[in-house]
C-alpha cells in the first residue's frame, strides 16, 4: 500500500477525532461569558472576553479538521478501518510499543508518586534495557509484567493521595520486583548462552544512575526530589543531615 494512502487513512480518523474535540471545546467555550464578560471588577465587553481567543482557536481547528477530512476522503483515506498496519507498525512493533507505553505509564502514574524513587527507577531501567535490547518477546513480556505487578499493588493498596509519600510495603514490593527481575534476567540469559556485556552492566546502571541522580539533585542542585520518605532515600536523607553534614558544618 502506498505511503500516502496509509497516511490519508490515518488522517481520516485523526480529522474525525479533531472535529469531535474542537466541537467539545467550542461547547466548553460557550460556557465562558462572552457579551457580558464582567469579571474581577473589570467591566467586560465581547472584545475583552476570556472566550474570544479560544473561540477563534477552536473554530479554526474545526475548520482545518474539516479540510483535513476532505483531503483524506479525496485521496482515498476513508475506504477501510484503521488497523495496526495502517498505523505503520508491524504486529511485533505494536506489541513493543504497547509494552513501552504500559511501563512508562505504570512508572509515572503509579510508582513514582508512591514508591521510593531509586527503587522504582532501578526497576524501570532494568525492565526497559532487558526487555527491549535484544527484542526477545519473552524478556519484554516478563519485564512488563514485573513492572506492572508492584505498580498495580501500589496503586490499589495505596490509592488515596494522602498515602502517596508515606513509607509503605509498596517500597518493599518494588525492591523485590527489581531483585526478581534481575535474577530472572541472569537465569534466562545464562540458559541461552554467554551473558552479554549489556546484561551484565544492567543492574549496575539500574542502581548507580538513580542513586547518583537523586543524591546530586537533592544535595548538589538543591532541588526537590520525588518521595523523600521513600525506603532508600529517607535513609540517605537522614545520614546526610545527621551523620555527614555535622562533619563540616559544626565546629
Amino acid at each position, binding site marked *: 500500500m502506498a505511503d500516502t494512502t496509509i497516511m490519508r487513512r490515518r488522517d481520516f480518523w485523526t480529522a474525525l477525532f479533531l472535529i469531535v474535540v474542537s466541537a467539545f471545546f467550542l461547547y*466548553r467555550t460557550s460556557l465562558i461569558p462572552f457579551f457580558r464578560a464582567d469579571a474581577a471588577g473589570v467591566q467586560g465587553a465581547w472584545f475583552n472576553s476570556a472566550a474570544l481567543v479560544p473561540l477563534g*482557536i477552536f473554530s479554526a481547528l474545526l475548520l*482545518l479538521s474539516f479540510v483535513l477530512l476532505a*483531503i483524506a476522503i479525496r485521496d482515498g483515506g476513508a475506504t477501510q478501518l484503521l488497523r495496526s498496519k495502517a498505523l505503520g507498525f508491524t504486529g511485533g512493533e505494536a506489541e513493543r510499543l504497547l509494552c513501552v507505553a504500559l511501563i512508562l505509564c505504570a512508572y509515572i502514574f503509579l510508582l*513514582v508518586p508512591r514508591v521510593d524513587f531509586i527503587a522504582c527507577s532501578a526497576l524501570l531501567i532494568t525492565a526497559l534495557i532487558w526487555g*527491549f535490547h535484544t527484542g526477545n518477546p519473552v524478556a519484554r513480556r516478563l519485564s512488563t509484567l514485573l513492572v506492572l505487578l508492584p505498580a498495580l499493588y501500589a496503586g490499589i493498596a495505596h490509592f488515596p493521595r494522602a498515602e502517596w509519600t508515606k513509607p509503605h510495603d509498596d517500597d518493599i514490593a518494588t525492591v523485590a520486583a527489581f531483585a526478581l527481575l534481575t535474577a530472572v534476567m541472569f537465569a534466562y540469559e545464562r540458559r541461552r548462552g554467554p551473558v552479554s556485556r549489556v546484561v551484565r552492566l544492567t543492574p549496575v546502571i539500574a542502581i548507580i544512575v538513580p542513586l547518583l541522580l537523586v543524591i546530586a539533585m537533592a544535595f548538589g542542585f538543591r532541588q526537590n526530589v520525588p518521595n523523600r520518605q521513600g525506603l532508600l532515600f529517607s535513609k540517605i536523607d537522614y545520614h546526610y543531615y545527621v551523620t555527614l553534614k555535622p562533619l563540616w558544618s559544626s565546629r
Partner: protein
Amino acid sequence: MEFVSTQIAGFWLAFTDLATDPVTYVYLVASVFLGIVFGALPGLTATLAVTILTGFFSNKFPLEQSLIALIGAYVGAIYGGSYPSILLNIPGTAASAATAMDGYPLTRNGRGGEALGITTTASFIGTLFGTVCLLIFVWVLLLISRNIASPEKALLALFGILLSGTLMSRDLVIKGWISGLIGLAMAMVGLDPILSEDRYTFGWPYLLSGFQIVPVLMGAFAIPQIMDGLRATVMAAQMPRVGRIVPRFAEVLRRLPSITRSGAIGTGVGALPGVGEDVAGWVSYGVGKASSREGGKFGKGSVDGLISAEAANNAAIGGALIPLLVLGIPGSPPAAALLGALKINNVIPGPTIDPALILRVVAILVMASITMFIMGLFTARVFIMILRIPQTVFLPVVMVLTTIGSFSVGGGINDLFLMICVGLFAYAMNVMKYPIAPLVIGAILGGLFDETFRRSLLISDGDPSVFFSRPGAAILLTLNVLLILSQLPVVQRLFTRLTGKKENAA
C-alpha cells in the same frame, strides 16, 4: 562609531568577567560535553538537552550560572548531531539531517576524520558569526521594538506559530497549522491573563496556573523519542575508521567564503520566529548547491555541502536568540526551552530586558563555541566511542533524567502527569506526521497572543482596525495573510501558471 565601541567595551567586560571566573569553566566543560553527547546520540535532541538542564538548574541557581550551562548544552548539542550524521548516516538531531548528505559519503571514501575536522571548524565559525549578528542586530531590534505595542506583538506571535507550522511540516502544511492551534489551545488552559476567568480546568486546581513549560517540553520531546527508540531494536553500529581530525589551516581559509555565506543564511533563518536550526541547515544546503562551484558534487561527498549545512545550523543559534531576547519569541525549539528557564527565573525577555544580560549571553556563546571547538578537535574520539552505546541502554536513563528534571521544576507529581500525557499525545502526533515544534511554540506563545490580542482590542475599544492602521501591524498582518494564502492550492496553481507563462515568454 560610538555605538560600536560601547558595544565592544560592554562585550569585553562581560567576557573578561566570565573568563576570569573558574566556576565558568566547570559549567562550560560539563555542559558542552553533555550537549555534544546528547546531540551525538541519535534519539536525543538539543531541545531535550536544554530542557533537562532547565529542570536541574531551575530557580535554585543564579541565572548567570544557569545560562552558562543551558547555552553550553545548546551549542554542544547542535554541533554533536554531526557525529552520527557523518559516521553512521544517522542524523543525531534534526538540525544535522542535511549534514549526512555529504558527511557520510566522505566517511565511506575514508575521509571521516577530515569531515569531522572541517565540520567542527565550520560549526565554530558559524556560531561566532551568529553571535556577532546577535550582538549587532539585537540592539537594532531593541530600538525598533520600543515602538512595538500589543497589536504588533499579537501578530508577531501568530506569525511565529504559522511560520513554524508551515516550515516544519513533513506532510501536509495544514498539519503544521493544526499542531500550532493545538499548542495555542493548550496555552488557553488556566486563569485568563486579563479577567482571571477560569478556562478548561475541569475543577482541577493544578490547571489554574496553566500548563507549565518545562513538563510540556519534556513530554513533547523526550517521551516520543524514548517510545520510538525502544519500538524498534537498533543494535550498536560498527564505527568506521577516522584518520586525522584537525583540519589544515589552508583548507579552512579556502572554505571561508562558504562558511560565511552559510553563517549568514543560518543566522537569518534562525532569527525567524519558531523555525530553528533544522530548517536553517536545509535552506543553506539548498543555496549552497545552487551557488557553490562544487554544486554538482553535493550529495556525493562535497566538503562545501557539509559546510553549508553545519555552519548554518550552528549560526542559527545566535539568530534564534535575537527574537527571544528582543521580543520574548523563541527562534527555535531549544530557544523555547531557554525562554522557559528565563521565565522560571522571573526574567521576561523583551524591550525592557537588562542590557547586561544580553552582553552576558553573547559572551557565554563565544566561550561555549571555543569550548566546543577545542573539545571537537581534541576529544572527538571520546564522542565516537559514546556513539557505540545502544539506544536501548541510554534511553531508559534519559527517562529517569526527564522524570526527576520535570518533577523538580516546581509542580511536583502533577507536572509528571502532565509530562506523560503530553508525551503520549506528542507520540501519536509523530506517528500521524504532525510536527511537534509548532505545538510547543504555540503553547509558549499562546499566552502572549491571548493577552496582547485582547489588550489591542481593549485599547481601541473593540475597533479591529488597530491591526492594520499602525504601519508595523499592517506589515505583520500582510505577512500573516500572505503566508496563509501562499499555501492555498488555488493560489499555488495561479502562481505556477503565472511563472510558467513568464518562463515560456522568456
